[in-house]
């Protein structure tokens, strides 16, 4: 049995009461996955990322969603939010709190949406991420039976963030999950949606998620992907946004955890005034491997995009940034800016970065660039002359580098969490967590 067959075999154990269109989609996904198999490094899009650790793995499907409030508190954010909790891909109702949603907003586990409201879900699901996007979206389509469906009626502004926590447990048998997130933002609606990949120490599961966001005219969606899974986790994600006139999609892709992580982020700016902002931070240690592939399609005139990705790489970690901005013919008067800056804390860390502009219009304002460097030694010296030891000086400067992306994060719980993670998870020699707390205290005083 080859790897795709081994994975698909798990499908046979699935329940058979899916609505017929869901069953048809599963079959299409499975057929596609069986045909293409896992990508190899000969595929241009996977040139730097070897997925054999996934293909060779043995992942069951989680049998239950058991999790305690204590275990959740240990890994989730303390956030005043509408919360939906998935445990190894299964919905946990007790830990979720979706009772106080304002009128016009629905947040539903995908399993329920498929049962009760499947025609409506069926229209949108898979519209942006078809089975041919990648082998992993095909695999996700074959398996996806759980996730989150967020619907915003026109004009609704959600009072609090919608917080989807996806927990990866430390299981005896490694599991896989294929969650699906669908966000349908009606005209002039506004929401913040957080996908938080949290994990327990020792977890070594495979998560393969697909997110689709449809933004109608004037809608604003702030999308956070906070990836803090355990250091053994394997994680593949693709996020797809489709933007109507004057809509705004702000994507924050903050990657701290996982052993192998691949994120694809694709936005289609389809009508005038649509605007996308991509902010990314990846902080890698040990032998972590993180690959970010981003794409902005300027399909219409007067559309705007701005991208800033920062990588901090220590030890023997490996980062990949591949950012493409595509401007369609006759998409005039667009503005597109893209930047990737990386900081290498170790000689053995490695980054492959490729910013790319493909422009078929002439009246455009575009810039792109990538820089990779070490810490500013003059700044290290200046800090040391104040009595700060060299290790801490380097830690402070590393934190500062991350800060340039983090200042865009308007949700303070997330900004502080990441700042603390960067400060606290820098090698012991860097421990700055206390310091960050003080700065927060001074600010609040």
């Amino acid at each position, binding site marked *: 049995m080859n790897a795709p067959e081994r994975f698909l075999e798990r499908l046979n154990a699935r329940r058979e009461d899916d609505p017929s269109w869901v069953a048809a989609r599963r079959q299409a996904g499975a057929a596609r996955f069986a045909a293409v198999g896992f990508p190899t490094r000969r595929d241009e899009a996977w040139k730097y990322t070897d997925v054999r650790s996934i293909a060779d793995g043995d992942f069951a499907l989680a049998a239950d969603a058991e999790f305690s409030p204590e275990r959740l508190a240990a890994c989730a954010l303390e956030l005043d939010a509408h919360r939906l909790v998935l445990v190894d891909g299964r919905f946990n109702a007790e830990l979720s709190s979706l009772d106080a949603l304002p009128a016009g907003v629905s947040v539903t586990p995908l399993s329920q949406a498929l049962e009760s409201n499947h025609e409506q879900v069926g229209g949108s699901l898979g519209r942006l991420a078809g089975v041919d996007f990648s082998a992993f979206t095909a695999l996700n389509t074959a398996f996806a039976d759980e996730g989150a469906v967020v619907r915003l009626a026109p004009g609704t502004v959600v009072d609090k963030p919608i917080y989807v926590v996806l927990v990866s447990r430390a299981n005896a048998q490694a599991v896989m999950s294929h969650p699906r997130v669908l966000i349908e933002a009606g005209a002039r609606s506004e929401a913040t949606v957080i996908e938080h990949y949290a994990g327990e120490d020792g977890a070594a599961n495979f998560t393969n998620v697909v997110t689709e966001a449809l933004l109608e005219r004037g809608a604003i969606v702030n999308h956070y992907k906070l990836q803090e899974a355990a250091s053994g986790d394997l994680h593949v994600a693709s996020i797809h946004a489709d933007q109507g006139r004057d809509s705004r999609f702000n994507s924050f892709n903050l990657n701290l955890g996982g052993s192998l992580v691949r994120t694809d982020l694709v936005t289609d700016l389809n009508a005038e005034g649509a605007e996308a902002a991509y902010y990314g931070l990846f902080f890698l240690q040990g032998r972590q491997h993180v690959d970010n592939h981003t794409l902005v399609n300027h399909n219409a005139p007067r559309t705007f995009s701005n991208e800033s990705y920062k990588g901090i790489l220590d030890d023997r970690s490996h980062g990949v940034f591949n950012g493409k901005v595509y401007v369609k013919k006759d998409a005039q008067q667009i503005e597109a800016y893209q930047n990737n800056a990386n900081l290498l804390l170790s000689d053995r860390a490695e980054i492959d970065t490729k910013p790319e502009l493909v422009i078929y219009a002439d009246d455009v304002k575009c810039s792109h660039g990538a820089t990779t460097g070490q810490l500013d030694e003059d*700044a290290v010296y*200046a800090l*040391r*002359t*104040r009595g700060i030891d060299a290790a801490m000086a380097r830690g402070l400067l590393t*934190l500062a580098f991350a800060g340039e992306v983090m200042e865009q994060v308007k949700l303070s719980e997330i900004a502080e969490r990441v700042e603390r993670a960067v400060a606290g998870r820098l090698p012991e020699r860097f421990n700055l967590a206390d*310091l960050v707390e003080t*700065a927060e205290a001074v600010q609040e005083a």
Partner: protein
Amino acid sequence: MLEVKDLHVTVEDKAILKGLNLTVQPGEVHAIMGPNGAGKSTLSAVIAGKDGYEVTQGSILFEGQDVLEMEIEERARAGLLLGFQYPIEIPGVKNIYLLKAALNAAREARGEGEIPAPEFMKLVREKSAEMQMDTSFLQRAVNEGFSGGEKKRNEILQMLVLQPKLAMLDEIDSGLDIDAMKVVAKGVNSLRSADRAILLVTHYQRLLNHIEPDRVHVLVDGRIVKSGDKSLALELESRGYDWVLEESVA
């Protein structure tokens, strides 16, 4: 307190300091004057421990300790602090981080515990007020986007928080307007005490009107060629350096 003996320093094989002697006692304020390129900043950089300076001869002792054997941060923790002629910008590192990390490092070296947060906040607010700096500066990145004068005030703010035993201030007066000069001078004077000392590098008598020195030295071509009391600064102001040079050659 500070004893520099027969100090010879080369930078990229070029001799800059050529047998410099200087002794500073606790409680004293010394001013070092001298023409551009004489080696004034080099002296303070070597004392602070900057890379790229080779000491080929001589010694520097601080409270009996061999400074040249100490790490940069150890020197600062021992109470030897340099205020830069050109303070650099450190993007993204908040002033408050620098102050807290530096203060705790010094406290730890003295065997004291970390400063409690409320006490620290009170201290930095108080010292900011003394330097007439809004507390918003504390949340800003070190020197980033600061005006020339603000950078200098920020250097003194660090001194006020860290309370060095020996503060070496390299042209702390350059780029200051008249009012800022008074604020800075007041800050520096507040550091004066019987067990502390201050080393000022300056080109102008102006600063010395506000911070009265006990000793004035003239550094020319890598050596201190003349020392005197505060009247020497006045004489230099009116007569320039040529006469000192002639005198020293003779």
